[in-house]
């Protein structure tokens, strides 16, 4: 419970209607899209950097934790408050402040949905390359905070490669800007490590994002394979041939069967796996790439289809886009695993995941951002069944260890949050964790900014 005088001060800063503290409301701010829960003490809606600054200053003075929150679509517990405190909801800070076409910079507030920016940029012939699957609903502040990926990061890199500058409220209560309209800033790369810091080093108030010209055209191919090893091998083969597709997505048989059963898509259910491959660029550059890819795929025994127009393109993508949804209809609870391995390890790792799944009796289907080795087994269960839930946790843990052992990592794009803290030890020793803790200590010596995340206590 928050003391009354603190509530009064928060009301003074944010306005009465922007401070929530009824038990019902607090119950609703204890979760995100992960399985983690943690009840805050109060929720405030902010509309400006000054609001955030005032709230942070108050929190610091009163020694109360605070946690930024956007759309709370976090898959690892990043927006949950395990230590209670103040939730600072930035969803209403959602303006596009400036689009500087000359310098290729979009300046936006953190609460803007990724897709809203994309739509605005599209009308001007630009794109913001990071396109996480949640782009309809995830906020750009969250994307930067988590260093989000997405299907197109195979060719264009992840979020950090597209952020030029940040304005943020730091835990010392100051509003500071790092970088901006120029492509580099003398001094340590503060913008660089703020990306992916999961809101534990401060709260973004303004983002300076790099815009790219929209590619002139797109070609989409669907290839189906009789064996998962051939499919996974094709991924490396395409890239080895000197082609960097815009996206290279993989679906396994469980996913294929599920989407065919519940959506109107025409995927071959007998296939062990399908790849959806997209190349983009100026129109004239597409045909040679498509020909080269087709040749590689056919050599590996795949059957290949290509989309002749947008309708067909949508049809090819429909299954991939609907896959997670179709899968989640099968059971009440879902964990989307996010390990990543060097892409040439995919064939091996996919087979081993299957072994682990069998050992733990897990029901799952696999989606991959195959081009960059990012594995998303979708594990389905019923969280009301404690025994099954336990098996899922143990299985995931094993798969994370497997990824690390094969030279990969425990999370490629979802972040550590609360969920993966125990697995950090697979990847990092005490020294590394201490160096990370030092970074936290530099910016947030009191440990009030989004506590209980990323690092083991």
């Amino acid at each position, binding site marked *: 419970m928050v003391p009354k005088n603190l509530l009064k001060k928060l009301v003074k800063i944010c306005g009465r209607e922007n401070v*929530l503290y*009824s*038990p*019902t*409301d607090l*119950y*609703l*701010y204890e*979760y*995100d*899209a*992960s399985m983690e829960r943690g009840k805050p003490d109060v929720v405030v*809606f902010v509309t400006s950097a000054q609001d955030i600054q005032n709230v942070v200053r108050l929190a610091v003075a009163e020694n109360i934790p605070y946690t930024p929150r956007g*759309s*709370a*679509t976090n898959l690892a517990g990043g927006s949950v408050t395990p230590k209670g405190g103040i939730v600072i*909801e930035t*969803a*209403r800070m959602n303006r596009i402040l400036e689009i500087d076409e000359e310098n290729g910079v979009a300046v936006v507030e953190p609460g803007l*949905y990724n*897709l809203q920016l994309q739509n605005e940029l599209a009308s001007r012939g630009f794109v913001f390359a990071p396109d996480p699957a*949640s782009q*309809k*609903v995830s906020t750009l502040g969250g994307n930067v905070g988590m260093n989000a990926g997405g299907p197109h990061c195979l060719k264009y890199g992840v979020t950090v490669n597209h952020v030029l500058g940040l304005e943020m409220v730091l835990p010392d209560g100051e509003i500071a800007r790092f970088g901006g309209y120029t492509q580099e800033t003398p001094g340590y790369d503060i913008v660089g490590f703020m990306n992916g810091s999961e809101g534990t080093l401060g709260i973004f108030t303004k983002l300076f994002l790099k815009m790219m010209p929209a590619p002139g055209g797109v070609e989409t191919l669907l290839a189906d394979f009789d064996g998962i090893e051939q499919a996974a091998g094709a991924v490396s083969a395409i890239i080895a041939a000197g082609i960097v597709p815009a996206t290279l997505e993989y679906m396994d048989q469980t996913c294929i069967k599920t989407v065919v059963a519940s959506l109107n898509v025409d995927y071959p259910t007998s296939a062990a796996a399908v790849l959806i491959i997209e190349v983009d660029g100026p129109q004239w550059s597409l045909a040679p790439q498509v020909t080269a890819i087709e040749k590689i795929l056919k050599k590996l025994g795949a059957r290949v289809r290509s989309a002749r127009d947008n309708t067909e393109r949508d049809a090819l993508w429909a299954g991939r886009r609907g896959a*997670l*949804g179709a899968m*989640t*209809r099968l059971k*009440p*609870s*879902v964990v989307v695993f996010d390990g990543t391995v060097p892409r040439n390890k995919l064939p091996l790792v996919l087979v081993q995941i299957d072994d682990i799944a069998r050992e733990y009796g897990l029901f799952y289907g696999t989606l991959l951002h195959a081009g960059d080795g990012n594995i998303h087994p979708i594990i389905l269960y*019923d*969280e*009301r*069944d*404690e025994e099954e*839930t336990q098996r899922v946790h143990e299985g995931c843990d094993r798969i994370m260890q497997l990824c690390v052992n094969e030279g990969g990592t425990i999370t490629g794009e979802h972040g550590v949050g609360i969920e993966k803290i125990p697995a950090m030890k697979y990847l990092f020793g005490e020294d590394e964790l201490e160096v990370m803790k030092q970074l936290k200590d530099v910016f947030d010596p009191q440990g009030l900014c989004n506590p209980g995340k990323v690092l083991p206590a």
Partner: protein
Amino acid sequence: MPQAGLWEEYKVLSDQTLEAVVQCSKCGFCQPTCPTYAVSGLEHEVARGRHQLVRGLVEGRLELDKNLKTALFQCLMCNACYTNCFPKIKTDEIIAEVRNLWIREKGQPALQRYIFHTLLRHPELLGRLLKMASFGKRSGISGLAQVLRCLGWYGKNIANAEGLLESIPKSFLRERLAAQSLIPEKRRGKVAYFVGCGINYAQPDVGYATAQVMNKRGFEVEVIDNYCCGLPAYAYGDLDSVRWFVEKNIRIFSNLQADYIVTDCASCTSFLKEYKRFVPEDSEQQKIVKDFTGRLRDMTTWLYETEDLAEYKTGGNTQTVTLHDPCHLSHYLQEKVAPREVLKNIPAVVYKELAESDFCCGGAGSYNIAHYDVSMKILKRKMAHVKNTGAQVLATACPACIIQISYGVRKFNAPVRIKHVSELVLENSE
């Protein structure tokens, strides 16, 4: 962690609702399209939050109290969340059942009870009351207000309700249609016309146009002597009344001899398609339901299917037309093609797409009266998009939307006329 035992023991809500709630993975994809969330940004104003509230109730963490009531009654039941929902959770069904729970536990407000148990079950009484109100309104006395006050409805809602209804027609649709022949010269077939309450009492011109267009396309029109479809009662969780209407209407439908059953109220169409949920499986009634839903068409779909019979005027002035998708058409029936294609096929129509065309207008039956402030915020957003199209006419296919957006035209000074698709088709027909 949810406790297994609690879920198994919880018998206050149906298993189906509990399963739906548990199925929510909290992914949050319902946020960008939810109108109430768009204007408030509050977690209890979006499907995810609403599911979690029910979950809190089941797990004994929340009480069935005023906070919960506010959250669950503020939902428009527009179903926009369903369109984006991965596990395809029917949030409207959850909401209706919890509202029903509220009524069972806390009782139903007198006015609602009077409307669903008396007025709507006795259309002649409702007609008389509305006529009284209409007389009052035209003569400058606030007749509607008096009627509402008689019914025990106080507060600012009265003024709002009055403002929403520009005028109450002198004669209702049923009276007008009864007075004329509805058999075309060249008869191709027959349509049984389900007259929704909104069309009958508030927008007889729309229904009149509907019947005319059906005649023009060679269809005899039989006006069904139906009761309210039951949707208003459903929206307030009065499931007993819903069953009453369903039963009455099914009895009427059992005798219908027609090629199509058509209604020009998208809400009625979509709710009639839900009737199967309210009758026992494998019953005689279920057979009737299956038969009539097979022939049931929304007017826009019917117009689209009979498009080859259309004879439109050519030449003459063109007008720019945009479309607002009624929620019951776009989000419940998932029908977005038919109304567009019908409009685009009219020679004199220059079609212009409306941004967020399937975003609720905030009308939602009588939501605009019960939750005026929220409704107006949603309407404001809609009207801004409407203005941006620069269209002369906004077409739609549901009386509640017509009432709400017409109010928006007056309130936000939008230079656009609101028409039902039927009306536009009629105007442009030879």
